[in-house]
């Protein structure tokens, strides 16, 4: 059933031996030959920075690109909670197998077994590497590393650096990159945005970048392109993503032949600070580690607008503890989010907008003391107070789900290579490891696994097995791609309509949130497709961009990105429409159990939906990679 173009290239042998079998047989590039190859790494988050550093250390010439003014600012920096590994330091029963099993089950059985198992195997080396770099993970008084339980795990396997784990891991990888910049093996290009992929003789051989300061288009030639550009949550306008996070680089690759897999699999994170008004520019995550000690509740009676301290215990519904006694407040993200929405839908939401639930620390403060709570969550409490003006030591936090992560992304095989030879996709930008729902503290693990420990081997295998005819930036494919890019930018600037890019982006986001968000149905998705197509037409006729192309112009940058979001949004709705089941973050209202839980359909939908671009105006074509489960038994996910 699997489409021949979607050969996952999973190595043979028992699951536990696949990766070592691969390493034993992977082709190697002679050390003297590595320096003859230039690798283009786009994006400097955990995946990109760790890949750039590792490849440069091996001897490749690396060119690295980021849209920020410094590689250190990529959005991985904002990850709060932690990173999983199967070290089993607490001796609480963890193992590589259990991490693998939890991840594949947490993903609702929509990920590839072999990839997920490799991730679990590699997880331990990541912690070793980061500690060796000086990453200041939390420690116990004995000087050894501290672990905590996180987001739906029943073992304590999460390593963390206060509420700033992403920052510390990224700085570790960034510093490793800077070391290789100093060594002359990486050339860093800041404030550059990749606007096209250049394919020569069927292989990814370069990129077109826009210099965001001068507007100048640049051509960069290489022997492989690593796309490490993160997720596309900003298609919803409001998300926890940084303002500049976008899909454009991935979308350009899609248009050059890379299949886009499972675009509808988006993660709505349950604990974010609620929307406060229509001026809102982004949403802020409150780490779900807070759910270890905070209790989620709403008033029992719909419409109860009393302030929380006026609502006695008997009138409160601790609904997660009630419905899921064994996991309680620690149910996985998709379950927690959907339940919060259900409470709001039943008029039990709290705060002025009613689009929030309480996350209450009173019991924990009484049990452990404010000092302990402060040591665990002090910086998060401060951040909450800065944004809302309320003190969570005294008043329960108000939280609500927000778009946070996208499990979907460009399709890759076991080598992390897309359907375009030579185009590798790492980290959140690919679709591979999280299925339909990502577990907490797994994103950092995957980004660094791909960048530090997978790509160094799989890229070598590719480079050693191919020939690379010498080309330079005067090659006609580069000229053609640059011209197309220039035309698109010029066209956007020349519309001179009446609506700003922010207005269009907000409208797109509202459609996506209402119809392609936490709960979806056939009618709504069809409506969304029509509405997006209409909005897109208006976008290309009525967009107003100030300024010009030859200086820094953030509105122009955003316009280029929103233009692509307008196309991606439609594909997401189409993918959600085709997937007639509920799984993980994808909840179709037509497919639920009697208790309102997600109802998977493994007989018909245990596949990866990989979409092929068929040209402007034509409908994308779906290809299937059947997911084969040889080691785990597919069960109904139950957290009761």
């Amino acid at each position, binding site marked *: 059933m699997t489409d021949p173009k979607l050969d996952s290239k999973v190595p043979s042998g028992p699951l536990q031996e696949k990766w070592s079998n691969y390493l034993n047989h992977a082709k190697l590039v002679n050390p003297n030959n590595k320096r003859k190859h230039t690798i283009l790494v786009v994006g400097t988050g955990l995946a990109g920075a760790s890949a750039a550093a590792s490849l440069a250390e091996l001897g490749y010439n690396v060119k690295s690109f980021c849209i920020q*003014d*410094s590689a250190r600012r990529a959005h991985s920096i904002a990850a709060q909670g932690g990173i999983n590994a199967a070290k089993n330091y607490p001796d609480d029963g963890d193992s590589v197998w259990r991490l693998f099993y939890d991840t594949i089950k947490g993903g609702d059985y929509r990920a590839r077994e072999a990839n997920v198992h490799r991730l679990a195997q590699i997880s331990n080396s990541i912690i070793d590497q980061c500690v060796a770099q000086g990453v*200041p993970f939390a420690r116990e008084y004995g000087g050894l590393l501290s672990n905590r339980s996180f987001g739906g795990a029943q073992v304590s396997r999460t390593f963390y650096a206060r509420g700033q784990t992403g920052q*510390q891991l990224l700085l570790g990888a*960034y510093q490793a990159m800077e*070391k290789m910049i100093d060594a002359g093996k990486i050339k860093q290009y800041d404030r550059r945005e990749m606007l096209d992929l250049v394919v020569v003789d069927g292989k990814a051989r370069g990129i077109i970048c826009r210099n965001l300061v001068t507007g100048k288009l640049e051509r960069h030639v290489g022997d492989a392109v690593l796309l490490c550009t993160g997720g596309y949550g900003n298609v919803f306008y409001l998300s926890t993503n940084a303002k500049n996070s976008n899909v454009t680089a991935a979308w350009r690759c899609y248009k050059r032949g890379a299949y886009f897999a499972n675009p509808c699999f988006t993660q709505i994170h349950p604990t974010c600070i609620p929307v406060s*008004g229509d*001026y809102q520019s982004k949403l802020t995550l409150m780490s779900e580690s807070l759910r270890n000690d905070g209790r989620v509740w709403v008033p029992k009676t719909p419409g109860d607008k009393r302030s929380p301290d006026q609502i006695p215990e008997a009138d409160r519904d601790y609904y997660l503890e009630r419905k899921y006694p064994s996991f309680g407040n620690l149910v996985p993200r998709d379950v927690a989010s959907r339940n919060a929405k259900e409470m709001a839908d039943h008029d039990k939401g709290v705060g002025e907008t009613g689009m929030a639930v309480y996350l209450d620390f009173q019991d924990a403060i009484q049990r452990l003391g404010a000092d302990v709570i402060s040591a665990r969550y002090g910086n998060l409490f401060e951040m909450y107070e800065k944004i809302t003006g309320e003190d969570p030591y005294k008043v329960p936090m108000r939280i609500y789900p927000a778009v946070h992560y996208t499990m979907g992304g460009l399709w890759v095989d076991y080598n992390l290579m897309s359907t375009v030879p030579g185009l590798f996709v790492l980290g959140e930008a690919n679709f591979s490891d999280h299925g339909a729902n990502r577990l907490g503290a797994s994103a950092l693990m995957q980004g660094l696994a791909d960048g530090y420990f997978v790509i160094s081997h799989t890229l070598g295998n590719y480079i050693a097995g191919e020939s690379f005819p010498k080309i330079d930036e005067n090659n006609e494919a580069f000229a053609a791609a640059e011209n197309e890019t220039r035309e698109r930018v010029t066209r956007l600037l020349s519309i001179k309509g009446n609506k*700003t890019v922010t207005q269009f982006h907000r409208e797109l986001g509202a459609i996506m949130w209402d119809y392609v968000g936490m709960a979806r149905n056939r009618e709504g998705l069809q409506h969304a497709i029509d509405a997006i197509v209409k909005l897109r037409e208006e976008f290309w006729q009525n967009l107003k961009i100030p*300024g010009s192309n030859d200086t820094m112009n953030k509105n122009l940058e955003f316009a280029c990105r929103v233009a692509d979001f307008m196309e991606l949004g439609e594909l997401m709705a189409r993918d959600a429409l085709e997937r007639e089941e509920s799984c993980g973050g994808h909840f179709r209202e037509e497919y639920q159990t009697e208790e309102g839980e997600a109802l998977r359909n493994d007989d018909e939908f245990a596949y990866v939906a990989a979409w092929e671009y068929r040209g402007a105006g034509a409908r994308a074509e779906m290809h299937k990679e059947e997911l084969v489960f040889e080691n785990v038994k597919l069960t109904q996910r139950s957290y009761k």
Partner: protein
Amino acid sequence: MADKLMRINLKVWRQESPNAQGRLVPYVVEGVNPHMSFLEMFDYLNEGLIQQGEEPVEFDHDCREGICGSCSMMVDGMAHGPQRGTAVCQLHMRHYKDGDTIVVEPWRATGFPIIKDLVVDRSAFDRIIAAGGYISVNTGNAQDANMIPVEKAKSDAGFDYAACIGCGACVAACPNASAALFTSAKIAHLAMFPQGEPEKKRRVVRMVEQMDAEGFGDCSNHGECEAACPKVISISSIALMRREYAKAMFS
């Protein structure tokens, strides 16, 4: 929202390009919601400017959670504004009153040339890190993580220094435009860990040399950097850097 909307009078530094003459331009922003963040107030201003056919104010921003270090505004002469331990993206308008006048300028330092309006070039910071702000351990070389115990107090102190977001507020706040706090925070972070030991001499010497080469001024203990730092990094790191530097030079 029941909150009363405010009128804010802004004076904003506008400068078309690195070599153009800049100036403070007054704007009246009506209808500012007190729950807006400072940057959302700028978004709101910019949307209005675009509708009037004017060019919006360019400013760097990304995560808006106070961790990426992109945002960089001098607000009434204070780097990141009046709230201690807060990047300007986390400053909210509820700290202002209806009718207030606020002056907003870019970071000003030789080491941070202006690109446009409030946007500056901070690549000097990357070059300082490249000079030695790391532990040289190639991927795959590491031993088991728990083979390197670290005293908890030292590890915590290391974290406090490592919390630097590289925003440049320390430079902007310093009368000498010194990058001593930024540079020393990384040196101090790595000095707290045994892994950082083998390279410590080379690290401090090269990073300090690079800091000087970038045109940043010297530190004369004003302490403005610590007051402006959104992560409240202590100037004790500067003392540590000086000790390390002296030890490196005389050993």
